């Protein structure tokens, strides 16, 4: 699935300081019935965004005008736990977000994000708190995520932290490539390997 290249992103951010946000909240199972990738933005955080009667919940950050248009989400610890549904990462991307920042991610969610063009940025817990505090003090707080230099910075104060990403995945994100391009190029090596499997 092609996605737009990611280099440097400067944006305000939606804060979601809740721990263990699971993929059933990000995209509830009843919205997984599509056979194409459509409408996942609409149902992103469906049950936290909307009341049962379909009216938006005014106090949920994704509905608040002061954060509208942000391309970054700052989430609580252990973000994306639960199911392997890539629909969760699609809904993040399709909602218009390109980066999720948290002090810890669930593994499968993190992989899925990288595969669909959403950059998961893991920061220290104190730095995550700093981000939450800054956003609370000023919803227009800008955060700069610099992939080539692997840094995340609070623009106003210049406070910064570096983050990890393996070089291969970084290269993919910078160029908008994905793994299938790579794997298809070494198909001969794969079929040779397969021929020697015991079953």
């Amino acid at each position, binding site marked *: *699935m092609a996605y737009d290249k990611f280099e440097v992103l400067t944006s305000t951010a939606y804060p979601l*300081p*809740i*721990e*263990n946000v*699971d993929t*059933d*909240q990000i995209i*509830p*199972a*009843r919205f*997984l*019935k*599509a*056979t*194409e*990738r459509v409408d996942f933005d609409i149902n992103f955080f469906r*049950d936290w965004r909307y009341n*049962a009667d379909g009216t938006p919940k005014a106090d949920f950050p994704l509905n608040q005008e002061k954060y509208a248009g942000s391309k970054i989400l700052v989430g*609580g*610890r*252990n973000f994306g*736990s*639960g*199911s*392997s*549904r*890539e*629909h969760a*990462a699609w809904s993040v991307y399709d909602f218009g977000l390109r980066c999720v920042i948290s002090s*810890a*991610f*669930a*593994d*499968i969610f993190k*992989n*899925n994000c990288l*595969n*669909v063009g959403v950059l998961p940025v893991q920061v220290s817990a104190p730095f995550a708190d700093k981000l939450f505090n800054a956003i609370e003090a000023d919803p227009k707080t800008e955060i700069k995520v610099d992939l080539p230099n692997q840094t995340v910075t609070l623009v106003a104060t210049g406070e910064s932290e570096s983050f990890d990403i*393996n*070089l*291969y*995945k970084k290269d993919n994100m910078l160029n908008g490539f*994905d*793994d*299938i391009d*790579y*794997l*298809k190029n*070494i*198909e001969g*090596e*794969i*079929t040779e*390997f*397969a021929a020697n*499997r*015991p*079953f």
Partner: protein
Amino acid sequence: MATTLFDKVWDSHVVRHVQDGPDVFFIDRHFIHEVTSPVAFLGLESRGNSVLYPNRTFATADHNTPTMNQHLPVADALSANQLNALERNAKKHGISHWGLGDVNNGIVHVVGPENGITLPGATIVCGDSHTSTHGAFGAIAFGIGTSEVEMVLSTQCIMQSKPKAMRINVNGKLGLGVTPKDVALYIISKQTTSGATGYFVEYAGDVFEDMTMEGRMTVCNLSIEMGARGGMIAPDQKTYDYIAGRAQTPKGADWDKAMKYWETLSTDEGAEFDAEFNYDAADIEPMITYGTNPGMGMGVTKDIPTAESVEGGVDTYRKSLGYMDFHEGDTMIGKKIDFVFLGSCTNGRIEDFRGFCSIVKGRKKADHVTAWLVPGSHKVVDQIKAEGLDKIIEEAGFVLREPGCSACLAMNDDKIPAGKLSVSTSNRNFEGRQGPGSRTLLASPLVAAASAVEGVVTDPRTILNANA
């Protein structure tokens, strides 16, 4: 050098190591179902790729299927559309397909082992996080996303960084009424939902050695709920006895050749793990969860802990109890329940139905409780009938439904209504997991059965002791 079981299986599947990147990791067996595969096939086709090894992928319909009247056309148009897409894609690409009503149909993680597709030392993936179930056979098995489903279809490989290795040892003897589900919920309550993030877990010690294959599957299934990529148990005679003679298991000379490999599959003495934990079987009680993640569990006789006494943020903890409409210090025993769900890839196997029946036999379902008993596969249904468990179920006032994921994720009609409280043998108690607004207590089939007959959360030991 002394190496771990995990190292042995992982390293033997690395096609190549990408410099400063992940491993190109070969996949022996791939399961697909209707929910996470359609977009992968679209991607495959839009790139003009074909399925590289159709005989290494297996399709079964389970997530979206009705659990009553499966002989009728599926009423929900969107579900029917997904089921059709699975069938069409499988047929088009030469992949075996077990659709609704097929004798081999059932939940993907139940039918894989039943049909001998799951083998020791294999690498197994599926677009479902509970793929970790297959680790019970000494396989490396884990859930993947749809992009990766497409990778496996087109190249039989995925790009994966090797997780760290953790060993969890549980030694001693389990007490009365303590099942594999309780062992897993106990471990998760100690590890929290993120304690094993970044790790692949090996379970070792007497408790797992003594367990049946069904029990081992329940434990490995729940590995993902503490954040682990997967869990595995070294194969032994029980493993070989279970797989021998199944439809897709190697036979004759192929079996002998495979056995040579399988016999190497254990952790060497002195091998080092990145993390190791020891627990004592005697400390484990029948468990129950009280919050909105599987780490929020405790012995069924205990009281809900205070926010200050648990790890993690106080606000998140209180939000969770608020959703459940519970309070710090509440006793779980005696709480009135509305629903009971026996099923899922965690506890939808024959052993789970035997356990449930051992409690409800000669008793009656409480009138106000709605119970959904959903076997994991048609083979489980057949065995239930062969053992006469269906009679016990019926006499106790329960109804046996048809196989599928059902209320585990509530994609079909089996949804727990908003506000209702359910004792469920499945794997997730997330907000709304079993239907918008539903409240879930995760527990073993024994706790579910005892609660179903009493109508309130019940310690199964009271009934087991009365039976004795």
